[in-house]
């Protein structure tokens, strides 16, 4: 049980009818989205899971920890509205509230962008951790988009997190790197898995590792499986995360992932179905 919940329970026993209960602030959950290998879809996953969590009514802040190579703002379509970034806040050049960009499509979703012109070594790990703690007081979910690799940027990104989502594609290299990252995260962090860019038709023909193959190695609780489909690319082109589109199967898959994180979705993750001939022919996304 969460310590603050325990506190509250004790409080209620003593005084069953508090006049104006100063509800103890429950700290938000900090989840780092990581993979080891680059290009497997960490940023896209962060954006979509964040959108889906916010659409479910949670207060969510997305933090781009990829200092020097910031992309989360692009994927979210918020790049034109970024005024200050994470290092401005850490170095006292900007107030946190001025640096948080609100997403106008989903209420409750904010972005804290990374600095494009700085380097990962410029980030002071304890200070970054302090910032994350500060955000956890104000948001239900702090999602951190981790940079590729296992160096300083990775260490910064995982410092304040007690949960991690591993994004892994069904490839030998991605699984190998994911395995390494799981080892580095250690026992302290609760780790779950999203298998990204699965192509069901290739799996059926024995030309791609299956979800079972991947998780036979990683052995992690599976949050969800995302298909490699044109809709994701199209939505990234437009800066409209596909999780906004409830009609699309991939958007639905992200909503279910969010539900599993929150704990409201109890169904087992589905393996995406193959696109039908007519679906390909008349697919709405352009």
């Amino acid at each position, binding site marked *: 049980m969460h310590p603050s919940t325990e506190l509250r329970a004790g409080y209620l026993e003593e005084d069953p009818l508090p006049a104006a209960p100063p509800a103890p602030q429950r700290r938000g959950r900090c989840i780092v989205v990581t993979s080891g290998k680059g290009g497997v879809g960490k940023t896209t996953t962060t954006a979509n899971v964040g959108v889906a969590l916010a659409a479910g009514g949670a207060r969510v802040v997305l933090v781009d920890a990829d200092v020097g190579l910031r992309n989360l703002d692009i994927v979210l379509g918020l790049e034109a509205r970024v005024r200050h970034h994470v290092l401005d806040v850490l170095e006292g050049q900007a107030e946190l509230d001025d640096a948080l960009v609100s997403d106008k499509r989903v209420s409750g979703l904010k972005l804290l962008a990374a600095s494009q012109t700085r380097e990962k070594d410029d980030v002071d790990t304890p200070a970054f951790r302090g910032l994350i703690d500060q955000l956890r007081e104000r948001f239900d979910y702090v999602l951190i988009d981790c940079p590729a690799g296992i160096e300083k940027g990775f260490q910064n990104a995982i410092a304040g997190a007690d949960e991690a989502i591993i994004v892994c594609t069904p*490839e*030998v290299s991605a*699984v*190998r790197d994911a*395995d*390494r990252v799981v*080892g580095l995260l250690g026992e302290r962090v609760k780790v779950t898995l999203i298998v990204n860019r699965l192509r069901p038709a290739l*799996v059926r*023909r*024995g*030309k*791609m*590792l*299956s979800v079972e*193959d991947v998780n036979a*190695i990683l052995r992690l609780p599976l949050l969800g499986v995302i298909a490699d489909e044109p809709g994701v690319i199209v939505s990234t082109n437009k800066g409209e995360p596909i999780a906004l589109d409830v009609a699309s199967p991939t958007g639905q898959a992200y909503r279910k992932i969010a539900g599993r994180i929150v704990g409201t979705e109890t169904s087992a993750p589905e393996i995406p179905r193959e696109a039908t001939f007519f679906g390909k022919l008349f697919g709405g996304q352009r």
Partner: protein
Amino acid sequence: MLEFFKRIFNPQPSSVTARERLRLVLLSDHLALAPDVVESLKADLIAVISKYVDVDADHCDVTFEQQESVVAMLANIPILGMKPVAKAPRPAPPPALRQAQDDMPPPITDPSPVSASTAKPRRRRRRRSNANAAPAHG
């Protein structure tokens, strides 16, 4: 040429190849990331070999190498000399084997490769013709 035919007629889907490569590479990775395990394996290995021969413990080298289809352990253990001959007592064989062994001549103390390759098949053939002989294996 052989590779070409292998590729044409190999029915193994590439996902199986991927699975196998993944298994091997992770085995190598995990060995590389567990130096303490490798060190204690090396110590045990040297201890066992030292029962039979004198080894140069300071120049022993145990490494793992990923080969085509296996991860191999390569142990380079310099031998300084023989230990004074002290025959280790052998554990008693299971009863099923004992009868078969009774048929065989006493074990050769210093088997050279030649004697092993010429003597053994002949014996086996003779035993196989004998319908009442006890099975040699299991």
